[in-house]
């Protein structure tokens, strides 16, 4: 499938035509007859909530009706990054107009540490202050405004200490939130000393604010027993259930967490949605009133963690052809003040330090530095992007060193037969796919002709320089925490034939619910309209994993399918006996659900029982019409002791070509054209997958270009709102943006209908833009050098890099002309 890019009103129409042609062209999708009508996997269907989105009827947390006496919570946040809380006087807050309750750490009935995996996250600061934005107290009042105004009346005294804000310095002092982990393959020292060439460099890779459009929010209702019902914008309802129960000191079954949809998550609501639910739950229990929390944008940005900034160092040896022989890579993740998910995030950076290339004999070391900022957390790619930046930088470095085109060097280094095992011991499958994909994109994007044009343009223009780059992505799919690779689903068929499916995954816009409905519709042979999905609830499907690691459809789609298969088998057994009993029953063999009917036999002997009739008959015969499903991912394992294993069920691939124009006098730049070819195996829903690819790419581009997080010397985030933190806007969409899904390569593993996860991998396609910027800058020195370009590559960074290159050229010219 291809997106059209011309600005002609006909384009949407042409798109629709194009989509029509692509309907159900995965090999498995063809198995059933009228797939398009059924909205089965492999076909393009609108998001299940699309009409509700555009009419404003889709309800988010803050839109939920609550009783008139519902309380509104505002939070008192630390203004200081590091120190001891010496006095917290809340008398004025308590007596402010409209205030009903004020709580601090002493008011927490149960656990006070709400660290999600490892301890370290106090719900309220006790005496140690660890970052600006840390929660000190909470105020509940009759209105949002009253609560916020009351907060400002607090008198807070903190014995301030120097804040540690530099992760590199922290790593040198060995201030870590989790122990260092090392992966090693072969004799990396020998590889380095034996290599024809060695490059050594470092880079700073910036963090990223999630900027989900709907900020953190929850609404908690007390129940008639000791429990609560929590409505929350949340990627991990089960964890919130656990933490709320522990904080209230009540059993898990007294807490129900419900989650219909998020206004965006991107990882920022995996662990960071729980604190607000815990706080609201305490207040709801204390006051007996419904309690809502909604973080104003600036507080959301200060209080919650972000994508980890990384500091990477690399020393890599390569041969005369530019092929990597091996080397030493160190990544330092800036974790903020507590572990949160940093163990797995830095692991994933290490797992992706190779991207799509064989490192040869390499050592990869990952540090988890502790600093006095919010605890950095999951964000689309989960450390993978930061890890990949190393090797993509190195590819450019090698190319300049050898005077080769960066694409040539990249292709030479791709995993290939004989060089197909990662530095953590997992063999890379589907190498043909990786090579085909790049070859195809190289062609369709017209890379080499455009390379010539770019070089010619740059020779003519001293100021405006063009850059071009192709970067691949190889991204490992599975949670690296093995136990999370499981999912449950609950399937109900009602007596009118309508179907309700519920699963543990959460909908944040990625289209998970649409895909799961498609799976169920296909398995039961129904129209998509007959299948509905309800809010994710911990009392329907228990003990679920977060919707993260791109795994939503892989895991929950399989669980839903499992439920369907079990129910189907039961219905088939029933039908075989029940229908045509007078004629010896129906043929159980080859029985299927298709086009709204149960079909048995074929040709002359074919019998069709309409779905409604089947369901009625089953009900009257006391056959259960409800089923649960379960799935756990096979094959995966990883041994931290040996740092070897197969942490990923499979890899998803992709590649992007970006062309940019850079004004080397001002540092301004434009992304002129982007071509993407991305692998989703056999797509479950091409429109949704394309949406993930495009959205992921733009978000990845934003991360590397305009999205700059800045803290002042005291550790306060100064880019704390959209006025100062710039995510891509409409005009940043490249004028030419060709996005295609790779065809003809079903997943080599038995994933749901041989599809592949698509949430995270496309994010890293954004690296092409960064590499193209570096390419453009490199032209200032005749492509003899790849300038260091830390990220985000703001106009400021680009300008300063250009100035440095120009200075160097001037200096070398002077040196050249100087009398001997």
């Amino acid at each position, binding site marked *: 499938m291809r997106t059209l890019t011309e600005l002609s009103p006909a384009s*949407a129409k042409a798109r629709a035509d194009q989509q029509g042609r692509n309907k159900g062209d995965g090999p498995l999708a063809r198995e059933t007859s009228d797939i398009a009508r059924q909205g089965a996997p492999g076909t393009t269907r609108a998001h299940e909530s699309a009409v509700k989105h555009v009419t404003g009827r889709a309800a988010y947390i803050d839109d939920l009706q609550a009783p008139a006496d519902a309380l509104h919570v505002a939070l008192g946040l630390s203004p200081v990054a590091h120190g001891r809380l010496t006095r917290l006087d809340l008398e004025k807050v308590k007596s402010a107009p409209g205030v009903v309750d004020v709580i601090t750490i002493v008011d927490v009935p149960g656990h006070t540490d709400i660290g999600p995996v490892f301890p370290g996250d106090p719900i309220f600061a006790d005496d140690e202050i660890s970052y600006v934005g840390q929660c000190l107290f909470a105020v509940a009042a009759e209105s949002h405004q009253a609560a916020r105004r009351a907060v400002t009346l607090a008198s807070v005294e903190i014995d301030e200490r120097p804040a540690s804000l530099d992760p590199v310095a922290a790593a040198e002092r060995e201030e870590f939130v989790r122990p260092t982990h090392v992966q090693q393959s072969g004799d990396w020292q020998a590889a380095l000393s034996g290599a024809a060439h060695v490059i050594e460099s470092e880079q700073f890779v910036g963090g990223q604010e999630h900027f989900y*459009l709907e900020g953190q929010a929850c609404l908690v209702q007390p129940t008639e027993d000791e429990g609560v019902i929590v409505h929350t914008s949340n990627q991990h309802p089960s964890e919130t259930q656990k933490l709320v129960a522990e904080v209230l000191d009540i059993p898990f079954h007294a807490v129900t967490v419900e989650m219909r949809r998020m206004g965006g998550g991107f990882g920022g609501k995996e662990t960071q949605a729980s604190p607000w639910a815990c706080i609201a739950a305490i207040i709801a229990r204390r006051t007996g009133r419904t309690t809502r929390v909604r973080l104003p944008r600036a507080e959301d940005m200060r209080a919650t963690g972000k994508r980890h900034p990384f500091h990477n160092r690399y020393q890599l040896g390569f041969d005369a052809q530019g092929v990597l022989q091996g080397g030493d890579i160190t990544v330092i993740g800036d974790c903020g003040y507590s572990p949160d998910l940093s163990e797995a995030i830095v692991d994933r950076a290490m797992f992706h330090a190779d991207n799509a290339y064989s490192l040869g004999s390499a050592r990869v070391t990952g540090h988890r530095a502790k600093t006095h900022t919010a605890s950095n957390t999951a964000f689309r790619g989960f450390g993978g992007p930061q890890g990949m930046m190393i090797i993509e930088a190195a590819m450019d470095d090698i190319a300049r060193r050898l005077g080769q085109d960066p694409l040539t060097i990249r292709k030479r280094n791709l995993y290939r037969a004989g060089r197909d095992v990662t530095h953590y011991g997992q063999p890379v499958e589907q190498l043909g796919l990786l090579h085909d994909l790049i070859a195809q994109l190289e062609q369709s994007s017209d890379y080499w002709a455009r390379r010539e044009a770019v070089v010619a343009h740059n020779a003519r223009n001293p100021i405006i320089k063009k850059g071009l780059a192709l970067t691949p992505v190889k991204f490992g799919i599975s949670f690296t925490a093995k136990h999370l690779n499981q999912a449950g689903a609950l399937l109900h068929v009602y007596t009118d034939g309508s179907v309700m499916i519920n699963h543990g995954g959460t909908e944040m816009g990625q289209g998970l619910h649409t895909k799961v409905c498609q799976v169920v519709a296909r398995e039961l042979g129904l129209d998509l309209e007959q299948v509905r999905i309800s809010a994710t609830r911990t009392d329907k499907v228990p003990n679920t994993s977060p919707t993260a690691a791109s795994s939503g459809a892989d895991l929950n789609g399989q669980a839903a399918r499992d439920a369907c298969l079990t129910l189907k088998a039961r219905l088939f057994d029933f039908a075989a006996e029940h229908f045509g009993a007078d004629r010896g029953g129906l043929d159980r063999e080859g029985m299927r659900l298709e086009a709204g009917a149960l079909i048995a036999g074929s040709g002359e002997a074919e019998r069709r029982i309409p779905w409604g009739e089947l369901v009625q008959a089953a009900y009257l015969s006391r056959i259960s019409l409800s089923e649960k499903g379960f799935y756990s991912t096979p094959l995966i394992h990883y041994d931290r002791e040996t740092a070897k294993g197969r942490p990923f069920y499979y890899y998803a691939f992709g590649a992007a070509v970006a062309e940019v124009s850079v004004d080397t006098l001002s540092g301004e730049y434009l992304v002129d054209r982007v071509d993407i070819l991305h692998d989703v195996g056999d797509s479950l829903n091409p429109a949704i997958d394309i949406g993930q690819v495009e959205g992921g790419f733009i978000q990845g581009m934003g991360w590397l270009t305009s999205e700059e997080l800045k803290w002042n010397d005291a550790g306060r985030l100064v880019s704390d709102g959209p006025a100062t933190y710039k995510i891509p806007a409409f005009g940043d969409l490249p004028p030419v943006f060709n996005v295609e899904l790779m065809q003809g390569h079903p997943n080599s593993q038995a994933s749901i209908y041989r599809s592949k996860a698509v949430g995270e991998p496309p994010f890293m396609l954004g690296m092409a833009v960064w590499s193209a910027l570096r390419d453009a800058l490199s032209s200032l020195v005749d492509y003899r050098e790849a300038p260091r370009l830390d990220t985000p590559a703001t106009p400021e960074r680009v300008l300063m890099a250009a100035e440095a290159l120009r200075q160097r050229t001037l200096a070398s010219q002077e040196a050249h002309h100087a009398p001997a």
Partner: protein
Amino acid sequence: MIDFYLNGKRQRCNDVPADTSILELLRTRLGQTGTKEGCASGDCGACTVAIGEPGDDGALRYAAANGCITPAHQLDGCHLVTVEGLARGDALHPAQAAMVECHGSQCGFCTPGIVMSLFTLHEEQRRTPTPLSQQRLEEVLGGNLCRCTGYRPIRDAALSMNDYPDTHPLWADDPDLASNVAQLRSAKASATRGGHYVAPRDLAALRKLKAERPEARLVAGATDLWLETTQQLKALDDLIDVRQVAELNAIEETPQGWWIGAAVTYSRLEPLFETHFPAFAHLLHRFASKQIRNRGTLGGNVANASPIGDSPPVLLALDARVSLDGPDGERELPLSDFFLDYKQTALGANEFIRAIFMPRPDEAQNLKVWKLSKRREDDISAVLGAFAWRLDDGVMRDVRLAFGGMAAIPKRAAAAEAILEGQAPDDTTFADARAALAQDFQPMSDVRGSAEYRQVAASNLLERLRLMIDADRHATPQQEVTLHAYAH
């Protein structure tokens, strides 16, 4: 009382506090939660609504606004359209239908705002169909952030919207709606509005109010002022709205130039700028967003006196003047005397800005305006350079180089100007001028850029200027010296 129409139905809201925003009114008071809050600072567009006011022909014209920072009281006498008011029963409005079919929503949180921006485009297209260039679309959608889609499907929706059946909202069936709204407005004209939010209709009334309530804050588009309540939680409980003051709403043309009333919005200035100040018009396209330009005023920008406000440097380069008014009468001064120190101006305690005078440029005058920011659309300048000059027999005359972001106030580069004045625009003169900028400015480092970057960038803008003059003069085959999207 706020008396207005909401999606075709009359609404009267009593006792609305002065600092209530449209968004708050909708969500907390009227229970209309379709309109979303993403930032409460005018930056994301999730709260976009369309405000209908009668045009010259009496028909209602709909303009997008940010509900989060527009005072609810400014709805008085208007027709407010929200996302709930577009569909006709089950039949979606073309903006909605196109969004569904193009897969324009993922999480859906930005969607109501996007749909409203598209609705205003659809309304304009119905009136005067024009080709939808990229620039046009950027204008309409530049103020709506979407974190999920990457915008491509939204662009497709915008382009294909007109192919859908033109389903009118139900309220569009009401033939009397426009006249009812107009009536509401004229009824208001005679009524004196009391309370803590007043909107005088003429200069005399404004002067009187200023004398009576010296402590009251003035509000025009509220696009700066409202952040004080949403972001800093200040109470704005005593406000005088200048938007309806006839004299402040006039654009008065004289042979010497134009007096722009302080309450004239950017959107209204666009045609004038396109004709006479194309470089300024070009800047407007990158000034905030359509939602903001529909409400924000030149007067507000000048009064706000931010060192990173975009129009002051341009007005300085154009040698603009400002007219201050108040109970004690009117006075006029050059804009360069208006800005005193960081956020301090020559405005007296009970004065207000009446108008800004923009001298008519003569044929030979050149103007270039370059804004540097992290993002091309809807961003605040790190550095803005506005340069006016003319070439007289090969030498530069009337050189005015004004910068934003380089000092505590918008300021001209006196030393650099002196070097260029009367000289040919050659390498060495410009090199000296660039060096002189270090004398003119000692910028600071902040979230938008480091001092070093500002210094280098400002100096490079002069180099860009030289290259441009050079290319013009020698009619060399124009080598690109700026990116096309930034050129004018």
